[in-house]
């Protein structure tokens, strides 16, 4: 049961994130939904590498006992780095939209169709 808690958290975060992305009208809140979704995926990756009783994978501690897997941590780190770039780009889009449209309500961002 305790084992599954991270995965339950992943599912909860995913649902919250998708609901935010779909239902919120404010562009920044939609972006926050994407960031939450990223966190959910990162938590999923990290929890994959967990081994019961394992310690942090640091070579100089060189334990004889189990370590948690380092690979998912590397993946998560990469994903975080990409997430930073993603959020930065999304936020700069929001800044430009705010400047040009005077609003960040997604109902107002509908000039393309015309």
């Amino acid at each position, binding site marked *: 049961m305790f084992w599954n808690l991270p995965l339950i958290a992943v599912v909860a975060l995913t649902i919250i994130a998708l609901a935010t992305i779909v239902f919120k009208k404010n562009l920044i809140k939609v972006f926050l939904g994407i960031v939450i979704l990223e966190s959910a995926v990162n938590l999923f990756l990290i929890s994959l590498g967990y081994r019961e009783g394992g310690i942090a994978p640091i070579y100089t501690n060189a334990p004889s006992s189990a370590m948690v897997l380092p690979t998912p941590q590397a993946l998560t780190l990469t994903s975080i780095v990409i997430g930073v770039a993603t959020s930065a780009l999304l936020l700069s889009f929001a800044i430009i939209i705010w400047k040009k449209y005077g609003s960040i309500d997604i109902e107002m961002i509908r000039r*393309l169709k015309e």
Partner: protein
Amino acid sequence: MIPQFIVENSPALMVIVPLVAAFITPFIGRISSGIRSIWVGGAMAVTSAITLILAFDVYSAGTRLYVFGARAASAAIPPDSGGIPIRIIFEVDPMSALMLVITAISGFAIILYSLSSERSHTGLESYYTLFLLMITGILGMVSTGDIFNFFVFLEILSLASAGLIAYRIDGGVAVEAALKYFVLSTIGALAILVAIGIYYGEYNALNMAMIASRMQFSLLDQVALVLIIAALAMKCGAVPMHFWTPDAYSMAPSSITALLVVASQASLYGLFRIVFSLYSVTLNAVMVGWLIIILGVLSMVVGVTMAIPQKNVKRLMAYHAVSQTGYMLLGVGVGLAVLGNQPLLDAFGYLAMEGGIFHIINHAMYKGLLFLTAGAIFLRVGTYNLNKMGGLGHSMKWTMVFFIIGALAIAGIPPFNGFASKLMIYESVFMFNPVLAVIAMVVSILTLASFVKVFHSIFMGPKLPEFADVKEAPLAMLLGMGILALVVVLFGLFPGIVVENLITPAAHALVDQGAYISTVLGGA
């Protein structure tokens, strides 16, 4: 003739060269814009040359393996790793090589074109940096053999493309299109990341060959497959998730649109690679095959019907791009549906796949050409609106010729390349299911009708007074378009040679999962 060093390290060099060039470009741009043009063009030429050398090597000498960070480039499995390939691996088989050829030709043609078409714009150092990053992303995506690495290159590609779509802010409208594209592709990329997590949790490996050799097709694998198909079908603009395509394609600068076509083909490649090389016969081939066929047919029909009423020439072409993607999905989907059934595969499965794959390269060439002609017209006329144009055939003769070549190729008229690949798709799909073949032909006729209309409203008619001083497009742009047009014509005139030497090895490489695995893992 070519130094051994370059041939040996070409998989790494083709990624290094554009990456390094991308980040030196801002410094060069500070000296002068002329030197920057030479620098960027040169860098792209070198990249294309290395890529073509690699592709040639793969076609003549077989699949190439390049292991990053190992002592030797072919040492996929480190001796102390317990038989698991832990390093990042580039695995370039004929299918990847085909995509490399597409990227090399289109990339070079497009950079020639944009050196001239973007000259009058500001902020060019970021433009070329992002352009080269896009090339890096595409080349990496199509050659990597590591699924997480695939995700990383996919993200490099999406970030760079989103930046470039928004590049001409255009009163915020371009940013809106980029926003749509980028939100969707970020969510798609996260879905792929979840799938990668599932594979890692299940099989303790990130190497595609390793995952493939351990593939069980359990319930979790099915979830992962659904996530990946959804994400990559969205990225290549297949129908239920196609709505970003017309916006992004029409708002991006024309040269970038042409490159976005190549980028969407790279996503398509990723889809095929994962379905065929990762899952292959373990999956329920008929069901997944039909899923892809239905995606394809929907794309074809919806794309072309949406295209016909469009007034904006680039939006129209973008809908046609959706429609043409349908042909590739149809062809390869038919191949997938009969996978594991050798007699049917021999009877028409391979032919269908070859048709679909041939259509990938053809589409990249003629659709790129069409978008470039649209850009050339916009440069001289200043509008994409079909109703406002007319009579340009008098002043822009070369552009008109290139447009005709592209339009006839997309409509599948002999002797252009679209005909060759569509004929292969018709023939084989007819044996699989006649209804699908009929739909494909009807879509082709509608495509022709649509392009006749476009041609008429842009080029025909009397010379309009407001366009009296319109000149032909600049030479560099014509050169860029000319390269693509030449490929379109050559592939159309000699389809047999192309199919035999480029397409058939690619289709067989895609089907032959055992070879893909044994290249990395050895033996087996």
